[in-house]
């Protein structure tokens, strides 16, 4: 009989993350071996290698010189953490749309808890809860991440985090592997012990002395023996060998701040461009902040002059707010205090911080606010943008950017890829 998932976790992991991001951003790199970690002459190691390079034997953590010997025609790149963070954020915002419970394990890897979403997807797929086709949901996620970031993601589906994560390794590259409920133990049994996350060469070596090479063999060791040998970790091993893992995702951490910044195509002192760009960056930051239900108590503005001098100022607001119009008033006020030299700017940025879940707005005696109107307007704009892309609505002084910035549904094309999804 078909068993039902009582819990359902998906694990998503980018394929060759850094290298794939580079390939996605530069079409010239598509299909070529790409190695991120440094120039081929650098005395560093491979941080990420594209599948084209892996085919020639290049592996992560291999010295670059060795990679160069294996794959002399590879494109070697230093890489940019900023670009990877941006791609990662884009992917996680896709995940967030599929389930409210997402745990980021690292930049390129995350868990999605669907345990309490079955009814929602049953409704969408017009079927009963137990009949939801999770494979289709995973495919939708894959496609959307690919569309947003240009990078392939592999997905493992299982009843717990352990099984989902192991399934992902088998799904790579660019695949989906689903472990049916009730088959967890059978799924892990034939794998080498090294397939269990956390078992490194040292643990594998110790297990080797017990003549344990596969997970199936591991199940023959008693819990007592494992605890005596490995301490508390022995208990984890005992469960893992039987396909039992955690189903609990820690609650998402509230970010400390949300920033958006970008470098101008050419340094500028044109106030309409500077104010327009700050408005656009503020909108992007505030949109992100609202999407996670937060409000900001503090705003800061950062500028970098042509000579690379950087100035930043911040201001604590009277009360937390999530309204663009109020935040922008402070941004303009701060811009006056940082744009004080007669020199062009090369970069501007906005940071929202002291974030909280405040849900009230204190009205003013002398300046009647249009709080409810602004709030409702933004709610609608956010909905439109979530559906048709950020660039589907251009508002306020961001209109200033239209004359000399290319634009698509994702928004204006800026030099910061995070803002050019």
């Amino acid at each position: 009989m078909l068993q039902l998932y009582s819990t359902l976790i998906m694990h998503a992991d980018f394929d060759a993350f850094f290298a794939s991001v580079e390939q996605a951003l530069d079409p010239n790199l598509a299909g070529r071996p790409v190695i991120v970690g440094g120039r081929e002459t650098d005395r560093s190691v491979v941080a990420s290698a594209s599948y084209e390079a892996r085919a020639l034997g290049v592996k992560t953590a291999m010295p670059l010189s060795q990679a160069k010997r294996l794959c002399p025609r590879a494109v070697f790149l230093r890489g940019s953490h900023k670009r990877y963070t941006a791609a990662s954020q884009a992917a996680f915002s896709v995940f967030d749309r599929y389930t409210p419970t997402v745990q980021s394990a690292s930049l390129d890897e995350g868990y999605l808890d669907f345990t309490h979403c079955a009814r929602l997807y049953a409704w969408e797929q017009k079927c009963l809860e137990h009949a939801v086709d999770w494979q289709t949901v995973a495919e939708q996620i894959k496609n959307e991440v690919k569309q947003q970031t240009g990078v392939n993601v592999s997905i493992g589906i299982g009843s717990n985090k352990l099984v989902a994560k192991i399934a992902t390794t088998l799904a790579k590259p660019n695949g989906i592997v689903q472990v049916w409920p009730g088959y967890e133990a059978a799924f892990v049994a034939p794998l080498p012990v090294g397939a269990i996350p956390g078992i490194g060469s040292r643990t594998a070596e110790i297990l080797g002395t017990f003549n344990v090479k596969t997970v199936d063999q591991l199940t023959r060791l008693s819990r007592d023996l494992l605890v005596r040998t490995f301490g508390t970790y022995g208990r984890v091993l005992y469960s893992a060998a039987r396909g039992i893992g955690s189903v609990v995702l820690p609650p998402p951490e509230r970010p400390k701040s949300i920033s958006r910044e970008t470098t101008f195509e050419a340094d500028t002192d044109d106030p309409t461009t500077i104010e327009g760009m700050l408005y656009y960056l503020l909108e992007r930051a505030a949109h992100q902040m609202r999407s996670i239900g937060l409000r900001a108590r503090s705003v800061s503005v950062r500028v970098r002059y042509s000579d690379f001098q950087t100035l930043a100022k911040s201001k604590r607001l009277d009360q937390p707010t999530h309204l663009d119009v109020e935040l922008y008033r402070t941004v303009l006020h701060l811009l006056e205090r940082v744009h004080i030299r007669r020199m062009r700017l090369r970069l501007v940025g906005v940071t929202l911080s002291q974030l909280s879940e405040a849900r009230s707005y204190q009205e003013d005696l002398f300046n009647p606010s249009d709080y409810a109107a602004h709030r409702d307007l933004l709610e609608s704009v956010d909905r439109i943008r979530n559906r048709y892309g950020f660039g589907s609505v251009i508002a306020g002084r961001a209109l200033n950017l239209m004359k000399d910035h290319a634009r698509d549904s994702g928004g204006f094309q800026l030099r910061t890829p995070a803002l050019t999804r």
Partner: protein
Amino acid sequence: MKIKMSLAELSAAWGVLTTAVPQRSPRPVLSNIKIRSAEQVELSATDLDIGIRYVFEEAQIEDQGEILVNAEKMSRILRENPSDSIEMEGTENGTRLSYGSDEFHLPGEDPSHFPASPEFKGKKMFEIDKGVFQTLIRQTAFSAAHEETRYALNGVLLELSGTEFKAVATDGKRLTLARTKCKGGKGMEFKALVPLKGIQALDKILSLDDVSIELGADDGNLYAKTKRAEVICRLLEGNFPEYEEVIPKGYENRVKLNRQVLASKLRLADAFTTEETKAVKMHFEKGNLTITAQGPESGEARVVMAVEYEGAPMDIAFNPQYFLDGMKVLTDESVLLEIQDANASAKLTAGEAFTYVIMPLSLD
């Protein structure tokens, strides 16, 4: 110069005078308090925005002259409350302080470098009862702003027109107006926007003892005079808002509330708010006022008090602290609350003398 002063009186006076001593100043001489002995002993302090002069009562003058005493050092001596009296003497290279077996030397600074106290003679002033005035400033000062950007709100507006004396303060979210009849100053115009620091100094001076205070203002300064002390304070520049326009003439929905019960219920609900979600919802219906509070981490509270409310059922959200601040400065048994709807201000009054206007919160 040589004098002997009562330590109890010095302690009280020092507490008042130090409000005018700047924390940091480009002029180090201002970190001192000047003591001058002639026919009587006078203490003065100033940060150039506010100046206080105090005439000492219990001092024995052995020799006339002027000395400077570091305010902070003396405060620390007084904190130990070491004796009944203290001797001060100007020496060649500074000041000597002593009592019992303890003795201190302060390095010399030239008392002539200390700014002179302004003259009060010839100022047009009017008199008002000390207790009444103190009540007025205490009932209003709490609602003043503490903000750089709304500079003109960082104080209390004192106003005399005809026989009515008013104090008004607002931070833009709430406004307090306290008023009294004042017989002194007939036909005199008086309007002064006094910074909170000045208000604080006046309050402290009135807590020493006296029966009345005289007030006057000209050229951007406030002059205040009691039996023992004189205060001059630079007024706030900028325009205080047209406050009368935001005081509702009166709403249809009125409810009489027991002040202490309301405060107690609000404190209970307030315990279930957080700094992030400082909000309570007040639900008015026939016979009852229900106050609720809730936060994602702080839990939920629902408290009910019986009231004589006859109007339509209504929900309004407020920062509970605003109400509690108001309850604290009143002594009346009951207050009258007038409300209109969830978006309009609420008006709380205690007779004719006290009016408090509070803006609501918009809740999502």
